């Protein structure tokens, strides 16, 4: 049964329904795959015993006729979601050893839907990063390699461990969180599907906060259908998150009709950026041809404030992070480094507990919020954010969905772009605008770069219209027929 790790969620659900295999067998295959792919460092904590117990419980439920929408599906949980009784670190030293006494709403929803936890996946520290090189627990390695080279590539970030383990066939799916691109960019780098829902669709309760006005959880899977299944399980209205939106969760799978005739697909001219590699533009052109061939109509649109999205993001996100991360003070949980006074204890704890990128962002955030700069920086950025959201609103008066590249390059090597924070920030140039506007977006793998590594395209939708996004993504997935496999994979290539 070695091929169990190559199944999509939808196929595995069918297989278990027909009695071809059990949740325990499926989980055991993935536990083995997880162990086999440890060189990727995709997990901070593996939880094989919990996984097998959950799988047994799932098999019992299935026997009793209780079948949830993710019944028996083994997944990785990004180590940003609090999991009761299992260490949750946000890939930081300051939360090392923190064992939540409660469960995040999204992880709880998934367990209630029957999903099985394989472990807590690695990430950029406090979800701050685009290459998974800021984790206290070490870099994550992309299962993909450039042709003719074994040099390690980054899986993208911040949901790098989630992306890597799903690509390596060591988990059927994983949760991610996206603040400025942290689901979509790693999905593109790792050749998988990553969906960031509309802000407010999934509860943020129990998710370690980075930038609360932007953070949103979403599924990372190997097919568009799987993303639809998993989003349905994750999404809910939650009164414990006051920004959670009280509208019903549809059956997203029903949106996958394959029929996009007559839909208008916006092509934003501002996303053609000087210096983008030709292969990125070519992949985008191919995508445009696919939707056209399926009967949709590409329409050139303008999102005039696009170039200001990244600098506005790098005010808003650090400002919120400096406020959110004030709670790590060595008093209530996590690391404490003793000092001569209470303030000295705070300062030493935070100096030792946070990594360099986290400190950099806290300091930037503290600066832009400090007296005399608040209006010039923070309020300015919030005004720009309004302009960016208005750009999208205007565009959606004429189009149904927007098609762009996901990232300005394929996966780069670990060690590249590390000396220049701004070069690293530019990874998110195509994903950040929709984050600022709170809109849903998906990245799907559409082909390989000249180096033999995956390229992704991004579809953005109207608020709470994940269904149209999924529908168009499904058609593009079919047209792309992406079937390439990574080099470092459970069971070997």
């Amino acid at each position, binding site marked *: 049964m070695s091929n169990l790790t190559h199944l999509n969620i939808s196929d595995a659900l069918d297989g278990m329904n027909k009695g071809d295999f059990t949740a325990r067998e499926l989980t055991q295959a993935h536990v083995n795959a997880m162990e086999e792919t440890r060189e990727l460092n995709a997990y901070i904590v593996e939880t094989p015993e919990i996984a097998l117990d959950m799988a047994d419980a799932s098999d019992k439920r299935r026997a009793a006729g209780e079948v949830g929408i993710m019944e028996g599906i083994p997944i990785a949980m990004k180590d940003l979601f609090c999991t009761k009784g299992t260490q949750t670190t946000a890939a930081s030293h300051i939360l090392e050893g923190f064992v939540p006494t409660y469960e995040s709403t999204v992880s709880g929803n998934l367990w209630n839907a029957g999903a099985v936890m394989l472990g807590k996946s690695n990430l950029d520290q406090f979800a701050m990063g685009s290459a998974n090189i800021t984790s206290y627990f070490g870099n994550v390695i992309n299962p993909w390699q450039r042709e003719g080279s074994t040099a390690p590539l980054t899986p993208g970030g911040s949901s790098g461990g989630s992306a890597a383990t799903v690509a390596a066939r060591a988990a059927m799916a994983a949760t991610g969180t996206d603040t400025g691109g942290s689901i979509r960019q790693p999905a593109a780098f790792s050749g998988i599907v990553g969906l960031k829902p509309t*802000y407010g669709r999934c509860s943020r309760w129990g998710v370690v906060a980075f930038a609360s006005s932007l953070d949103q959880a979403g599924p990372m899977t190997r097919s568009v259908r799987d993303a639809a299944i998993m989003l349905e399980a994750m999404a809910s209205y939650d009164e414990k998150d006051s920004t959670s939106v009280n509208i019903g969760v549809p059956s997203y799978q029903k949106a996958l009709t394959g029929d996009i005739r007559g839909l208008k697909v916006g092509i934003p001219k501002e996303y053609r950026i000087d210096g983008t590699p030709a292969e990125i533009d070519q992949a985008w052109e191919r995508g445009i041809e696919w939707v056209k061939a399926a009967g949709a109509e590409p329409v050139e649109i303008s999102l005039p404030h696009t170039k200001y999205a990244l600098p506005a993001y790098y005010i808003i996100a650090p400002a919120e992070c400096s406020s959110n991360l004030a709670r790590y003070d060595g008093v209530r949980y996590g690391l404490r480094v003793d000092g001569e006074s209470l303030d000295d204890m705070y300062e030493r704890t935070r100096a030792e507990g946070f990594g360099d990128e986290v400190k*950099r962002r*806290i300091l930037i955030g503290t600066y832009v919020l400090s007296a005399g700069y608040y209006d010039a920086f923070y309020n*300015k950025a919030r005004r720009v954010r309004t302009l960016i959201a208005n750009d999208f609103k205007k565009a959606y008066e004429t189009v149904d969905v927007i098609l762009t590249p996901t990232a300005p390059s394929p996966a780069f090597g670990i060690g590249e772009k590390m000396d220049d924070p701004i070069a690293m920030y530019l990874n998110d140039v195509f994903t950040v605008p929709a984050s600022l506007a709170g809109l849903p977006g998906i990245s799907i793998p559409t082909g390989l770069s000249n180096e033999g590594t995956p390229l992704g395209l991004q579809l953005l939708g109207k608020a709470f219209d994940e269904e149209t996004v999924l529908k168009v993504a499904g058609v593009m997935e079919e047209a792309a027929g992406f079937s390439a496999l990574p080099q470092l994979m459970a069971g070997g290539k």
Partner: protein
Amino acid sequence: MSVDKKTVAKIAKLARIRVDEEQQEALSGELNQILGWIEQLSELDTEGVEPMTSVVSMTQPLREDVVNDGHYVDQVTKNAPESAHGFFAVPKVIE
């Protein structure tokens, strides 16, 4: 607008992160680079534009002002580096 070593020391103090003298120099360079790049926002006219407070238009949900949670001190203090008698313990703050 430039962040010098003195400003780094000041914001580090505000953020309660100990930054050694030798790190201040490097950090001032990095912060200046980032802030210089952010500076491009000033070319954009935002006169009369409302600062965004929420991407999703919604009214603040309210609930009855009643106690509906609590009574598990053990769980609350379970992850504390130091606790005593159901309280978080900190270094002495009053001489």
